[in-house]
């Protein structure tokens, strides 16, 4: 009896407080950094020597949340989109909140989305993968068929080739999420195409694969057969559970280390041929225009890149003293070998600590402790991969590619930490 009454009161209290805060923020100026509206205030009644209510009363039972969700206090950790970027939300992109994540695994519900015709909803019973063209046997596989093949489980990052594409000419978007968030990293479960193709056989002339999605954009990309046989996967699970609808449920193509557009979601067909197909996505899009007016084509590999996720524009420094700078690095050419961090805009560098596991073509976590005493900082991180490729500055890229490439901007970003602890995305020159 007492318990119920208390619960009612506390819910009522919480509701009012939330309302007040939202009300206040809609009147006043809204800060650049996404906020956790619920956790802004500390309630002294919950602090020692007092007893918080969660210590005294029962919480929810096991029958309340059959599929668990993050704490309500983590409501700010969400994918965000930039509305003005595209004409329609069905052919658009949102961004992973890298600044709020730890380790190297991206939670499934936070993996950025990029669709060209919205999210297809597919009953797995109606899923079919067709393999046709220059194969010995043109075949069709059900999802159950695919799951009976030998299985592979691998962590891979997936990065959109246009990640950072808004930053070619200067610093435009003031956030770690908006400038680096078109990347995610999950463990895929699936069948290696080299195994699947043992079933269809391959004709000698087969040099290219057209991967085709069953969504309303009929997404198609040409992939050379060497890559397909090297490490490509048809995946049906991510991070231990079925693919999310927005990530291609019930099955997608995984093309490790190569641009995300090639990882065709809702896959329905692989056609083998002797030449590339020159689809819209590899001619009009995903080609890199140079200052000469000529464009690079078939730029598949995602070069080494890194980002400081904290501090970042969304994660200002709130107090003086010790802090743990943290970030992520990745390379489409293999493992990350080293990450250096600069606090003075690239004049002096310190090598950060890499955290295991350090996997090939996977996000790698780095950290570096630092003391902050209220001085201005220019934070940068620089990744070096196992091929000894060094992440370039934007100047180095611009010198070779100009500013109209859109794709493959893997340059070093600069975060300015001001004396008040605020962090800004800035361009040095």
């Amino acid at each position, binding site marked *: 009896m007492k318990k119920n009454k208390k619960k009612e009161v506390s819910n009522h209290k919480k509701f009012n407080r939330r309302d007040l805060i939202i009300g206040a923020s*809609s009147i006043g100026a*809204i*800060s*650049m950094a996404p*906020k956790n509206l619920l956790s802004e205030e500390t309630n002294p009644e919950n602090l020692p020597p007092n007893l918080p209510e969660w210590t005294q009363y029962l919480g929810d039972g096991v029958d309340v949340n059959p599929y668990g969700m993050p704490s309500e206090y983590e409501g*700010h950790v969400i994918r965000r989109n*930039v509305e003005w970027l595209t*004409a329609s939300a*069905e052919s658009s992109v949102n961004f992973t909140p890298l600044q709020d994540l730890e380790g190297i695994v991206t939670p499934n519900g936070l993996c950025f989305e990029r669709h060209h015709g919205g999210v297809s909803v597919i009953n797995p019973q109606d899923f079919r993968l067709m393999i*046709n*063209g220059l194969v010995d*046997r*043109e*075949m*069709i*596989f*059900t999802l159950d*068929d695919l799951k*009976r093949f030998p299985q592979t489980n691998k962590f891979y990052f997936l990065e959109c080739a246009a990640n950072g594409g808004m930053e070619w000419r*200067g*610093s435009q*978007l*003031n956030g770690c999420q908006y400038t680096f968030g078109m990347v995610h990293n999950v463990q895929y479960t699936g069948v290696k195409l080299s195994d699947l193709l*043992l*079933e269809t056989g391959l004709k000698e002339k087969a040099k290219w694969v057209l991967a*085709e999605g069953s969504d309303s*954009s*009929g997404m*198609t990309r040409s992939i050379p057969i060497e890559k397909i046989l090297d490490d490509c996967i048809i995946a049906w699970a991510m991070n231990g559970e079925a693919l999310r609808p927005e990530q291609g449920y019930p099955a997608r193509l995984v093309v490790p280390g190569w641009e995300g557009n090639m990882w065709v979601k809702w896959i*329905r067909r692989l*056609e083998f041929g002797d*030449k590339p*197909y*020159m*689809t*819209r996505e590899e*001619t009009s899009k995903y080609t890199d*225009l140079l200052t000469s007016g000529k*464009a*690079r084509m*078939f*730029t598949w*590999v995602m*070069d080494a890149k890194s980002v400081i996720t904290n501090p970042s524009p969304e994660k200002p420094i709130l107090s003086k003293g010790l802090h743990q700078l943290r970030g992520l690095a990745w390379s489409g050419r293999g493992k990350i070998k080293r990450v250096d961090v600069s606090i*003075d805009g*690239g*004049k*002096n560098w310190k090598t950060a600590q890499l955290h295991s596991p350090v996997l090939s073509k996977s996000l790698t976590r780095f950290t570096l402790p630092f003391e902050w005493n209220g001085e201005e900082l220019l934070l940068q991180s620089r990744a070096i991969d196992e091929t*000894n*490729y*060094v992440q*370039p*500055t934007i100047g180095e890229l611009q010198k*070779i590619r100009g500013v109209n490439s859109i794709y493959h901007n893997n340059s070093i970003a600069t975060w*300015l930490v001001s004396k008040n602890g605020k962090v*800004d*995305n800035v*361009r*040095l*020159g």
Partner: protein
Amino acid sequence: MSGLVRLLSFFLIIFLANTTTASDRKFNLGQIATLEEVAGWDIDVRPDGLGAPIGSGTAFSGEEIYAEVCAACHGDFGEGADRWPPLVGGEGSLASHDPEKTSTSYWPYASTIFDYIYRAMPYGEAQSLSHDETYEIVAYILYMGDIIEEDFVLSDKNIGEIEMPNRDGFLLPDPRPDIMNTHGDPCMSNCQVSTTIIGKARDIDVTPEDE
């Protein structure tokens, strides 16, 4: 009882016999696709015209269907509407500061226009156009881009022969890594770099704000 065992053994032998006939298949999973199944899904068209479905159309006949299903987003003359992309124009702009990449200024192959429209357009009503309607629309776009005449009959026979203005505008293979330092030993201290702030995203003020 023994009869049942004999019956099961019989089926087992039949089963094994069946799997042996497919011995070149390693796992014996999946089904052979029928020609009809493949024909329904194999809709792609390659630059050389391979895969182009039988059909034809002219720009003259395409004006009506273009106005009906394309113009709302792409404009009456392919100039684009709101944030939807223009289809033509931009010739000579690719090397400029503001390049305009349209299907006639940038796309290297006419086959791609057919392939894309047939598989994905009109937006939200994919694969609703007939083959002839698609040839008509492609012809109309190529006509607006001054690539063919109004009465040119575009078809499966000649779509692989249309010469697009930017056919030679693409560079292969990928030259990356294309930066100078690729030997893993960048400068670590007293590096000669400029640390002057020349731009701030905050000043551009286009970052979405949380509500």
